[in-house]
């Protein structure tokens, strides 16, 4: 049985904001299915009472003094923008 269907792959691509062709969807379905099947070997392990590790050094909150510093100048921030206008990033229409 496959672990992931072509519809799921298309849905995931949409969530990840990727446009994929039908051909790509087929290829990714096959490859992701193989990877997920491979990953299911983790189920051999009983991890019921094992705490998850999200950070190896087990750091707690790192605090610093709240000292105001200058931000990035606007021209600098816009320097790499594909499109900008009136000192702001410009994007295509949000509403049709």
């Amino acid at each position: 049985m496959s672990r992931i269907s072509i519809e799921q792959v298309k849905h995931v691509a949409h969530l990840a904001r990727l446009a994929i062709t039908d051909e790509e969807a087929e290829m990714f379905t096959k490859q992701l299915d193989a990877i997920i099947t491979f990953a299911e070997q983790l189920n051999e392990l009983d991890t019921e009472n094992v705490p998850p590790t999200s950070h190896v050094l087990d750091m707690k909150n790192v605090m610093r003094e709240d000292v105001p510093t200058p931000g990035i100048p606007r021209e600098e921030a816009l320097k790499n923008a594909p499109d900008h206008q009136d000192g702001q990033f410009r994007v295509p229409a949000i509403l049709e």
Partner: protein
Amino acid sequence: MSLFDHKISELHHMLHKKEISVSDLVDESFKRIAEVEDKVQAFLTLDEENARAKAKKLDEKLATENEFGLLFGMPIGIKDNIVTKGLRTTCASKILYNFDPIYDATVMQRLHEADAITVGKLNMDEFAMGSSTENSGFQLTRNPWDLERVPGGSSGGSAAAVAAGEVPFALGSDTGGSIRQPAAFCGVVGLKPTYGRVSRFGLVAFASSLDQIGPITRTVEDNAYLLQVIAGLDPMDSTSANVDVPDYVSALTGDIKGLKIAVPKEYLGEGVSEEVRQSVLDALKVLEGLGATWEEVSLPHSKYALATYYLLASSEASANLARFDGVRYGYRTDNAKNLIDMYKQTRSEGFGNEVKRRIMLGTFALSSGYYDAYYKKAQKVRTLIKQDFEKVFEKYDVIIGPTTPTPAFKIGEKTSDPLTMYANDILTIPVNLAGVPGISIPCGFVDGLPVGLQIIGKHFDESTIYRVAHAFEQATDYHKQKPAL
């Protein structure tokens, strides 16, 4: 004979005695690049004009000052996922083809303060996702030892440039083996420091809980000098550790009498080629001859590391790479009907297949209904893998094994099946999951291709790793071999 056959400390001495100038060092770099870059293709961007101007400035300083640091005037290559102010930084991705950073990574600031000279930016797998540098969106880098073979990855450009003598040293980054594996394939020295040892500020994030910047060099001593400059707490990276940075070079005593080495049976078992296994056993004999002892141990969860890694790293990547949306920087599609469409087209045209595959795997593993089964499960197994290392380090000083199961493979050999390519990282990935430091040093040749020895240490104990690596290097001459090119 190249100037870069000398160690950094020797070059420093020569600068001091005015036997050479900084301009000579930069000339050497660009001369060699002109000679071999056609074949190797390690660099994505060169910064020749600035490098020469800086060399001139430093030469003026050299004429009047007698006190300067070890990296003063040394040419260095930088992996293209480390941001360099005013110098194009692409992560080898079309989506950042024109990105001109407005600030320097912390490691770059430290290199500037040390008066090192950036020669250029080095090729890599796109966003550091890969093990052969074949996933670069721009060019194929070749292994200087055999141009039909890959240099390894993802820091393939960094390792190849050092091996080819284009720069005396380089920076790479390592998320699952991306410094150590190319160092092994190219016959150079590559260290992944302890997680938190080096600031990640300005390293374009792939998997934030695993990524580390580290040095790639010809010798262990050079490696220690470079780490010395880049290591330490950084207020700009809250995951950088508040742990004192020791004097790494003073650890290079050559004395490893009484050192206790653990050799995991999982690292010499199935999948590891007979020749690589033999090279590692021979290396252990050398270390025994120097007064160390070794015993076989077990890291029982090793076989689960690969699956754990791909779930966690891809999940983190899917979040980290959400920022590439065509709004603030980089590539934007020309044919979008509306905003959502613009995001989708931009990302689909800008990212390569491996990056898309991992973003989708990560998005899936984090999605509602699958989070517990995949992402959280992998985080729990990560704990077990980390505990394996802790247990071994209660009794032993270092863990030793091969860096890779085989020497460098052929270009195109593993590109058709992602899982085959991933399997190449089985010996390096556990180290990232546990957050411990590891180095790869040359320990032999198989059919003219270098083999890497991996030495793994306790958290923040890079000194012991360096001491062992240096002692081995002094007793052998693998590091003196150079590719014919």
